[in-house]
């Protein structure tokens, strides 16, 4: 059964698949900013790049709240989203975000001005702050994937691949962007890690396509939307070609230069942005039930 023969009910009163439309592009941008900023901060912290840490923190603490508030129906009450960390991944994520911003700011302040107040670079306080900011940052890197995978409503999201994708993309964009900010020899030293991460990304996409295609009717429909409709050119062109294949080829074959490093980072960022938008667009709700005795499970 191909995608043309499936019933998409849209706003009509027919039994059929309905598109996920509640989380729109501003949510996709918020997810993008969180994973980009947290990934950049995390990788920069491991490599000791102050400028990378500051850039990551700025992206997380401005882009993410801005796009979230743009999406929120009642932005004035958005503080309430922190009230149920016992059950909601959105709440947990907000706590993680607050923790990341608080401890990262403290860590950066101590790094920059600590010595004036007697905080030596090898002091226990700095070490504790680094651990705490790193732990909260890691939580920000993955929680959006858990928020998506937690519910069974959108079958393609309901998979352990979502948190994995969040973590992988965070690390990939983090490494790609930090290479632009680092001096050339340090950037070149990260080439191998980025190649490995891109390979991981390719495997993750293959796993998602495979599990969706052979999964429930809703997951299968989402993969068909991705591969057989107007989304296909964005998936192959932006996510795969610009976001994975081109950077990988450049890393392997092109002589390293500042221009190549920038092109690699831009390609990866474009692929990541396209992926974040597409994964929201291909989400579908399955038909509530069918009385049609001729209908197969996949229609």
């Amino acid at each position, binding site marked *: 059964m191909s995608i043309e023969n499936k019933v998409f009910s849209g706003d009509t009163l027919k039994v059929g698949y309905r598109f996920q439309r509640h989380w729109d592009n501003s949510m996709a941008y918020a997810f993008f900013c969180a994973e980009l900023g947290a990934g950049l901060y995390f990788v920069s912290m491991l490599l000791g790049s102050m400028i990378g840490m500051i850039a990551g923190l700025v992206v997380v603490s401005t882009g993410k709240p801005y796009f979230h508030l743009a*999406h*929120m129906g*009642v932005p004035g009450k958005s503080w309430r*989203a922190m009230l149920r960390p016992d059950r909601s991944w959105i709440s947990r994520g907000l706590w993680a975000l607050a923790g990341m911003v608080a401890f990262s700011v403290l860590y950066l302040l101590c790094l920059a001005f600590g010595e004036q107040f007697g905080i030596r670079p090898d002091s226990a306080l700095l070490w504790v702050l680094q651990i705490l900011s790193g732990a909260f940052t890691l939580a920000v890197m993955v929680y959006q994937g858990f928020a998506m995978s937690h519910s069974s409503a*959108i079958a393609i999201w309901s998979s352990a691949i979502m948190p994995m994708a969040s973590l992988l993309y965070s690390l990939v964009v983090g490494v790609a962007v930090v290479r632009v900010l680092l001096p050339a020899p340090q950037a070149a030293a990260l080439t191998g890690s980025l190649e490995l991460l891109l390979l991981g990304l390719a495997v993750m996409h293959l796993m998602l396509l495979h599990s969706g295609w052979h999964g429930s009717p809703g997951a299968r429909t989402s993969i068909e939307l991705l591969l057989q409709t107007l989304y296909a050119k964005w998936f192959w062109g932006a996510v795969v070609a610009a976001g994975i294949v081109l950077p990988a080829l450049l890393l392997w074959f092109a002589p390293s230069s500042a221009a190549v490093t920038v092109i690699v980072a831009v390609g990866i960022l474009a692929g990541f942005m396209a992926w974040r938008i597409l994964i929201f667009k291909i989400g579908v709700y399955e038909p509530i*039930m069918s009385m049609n005795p001729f209908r197969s499970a996949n229609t």
Partner: protein
Amino acid sequence: MARMGMVFDLKACIGCNACVVACKQENSLPDGVFFTKTLSEEYGVFPLAKRVYIPTICNHCEDAPCEKVCPSGATHTREDGIVMVDDDKCIGCNSCAVACPYDQRTQMDAEKFLKGLYGTGEITPFEEQGYGRYTPGTVTKCDFCSQRVDVGLDPACVVTCPTNARIFGDLDDPQSAPSKMIRERHGRQPLPEKNTKPKVYYVN
């Protein structure tokens, strides 16, 4: 304690949409917002073509995913099993909307209230008195007409249905009309594989 639920008799439903209109009126729903919909499905070819009507509503799931994901505590379940949204607490994040497998959540965008029922921007006195109960931006859904249930009445859609296709009552009471119907006519829940334990059943 009671466990309120509903049964849809698909043999009885004629797709007249009286329930939909009654719901919109009872709940003062603006243009484009429905707490219940009657979906239709056609299959077969002439002369054996058939059309069936499948009413839909919030299923007041016992294991409600919308409640689990709600970060503000706005979505909660009453003691009688009715899943409610507290308008004062809702922040309009739509997490519940993406978590509901039945797509039963609607955001009350501010513009929905400004357009008016006729799309002209004119708000009738009827709309004016009803819209006050909603906060623009929040996400809402059917609450089994809890204000009616509280005083011992059935939901508006149930009393309006001319063919008795909607049967409402306490699912914990084995003698209640919906319990008997589920037992005798092998009621089935929508999308049981989602493990939400809906309190709405369908019989055919």
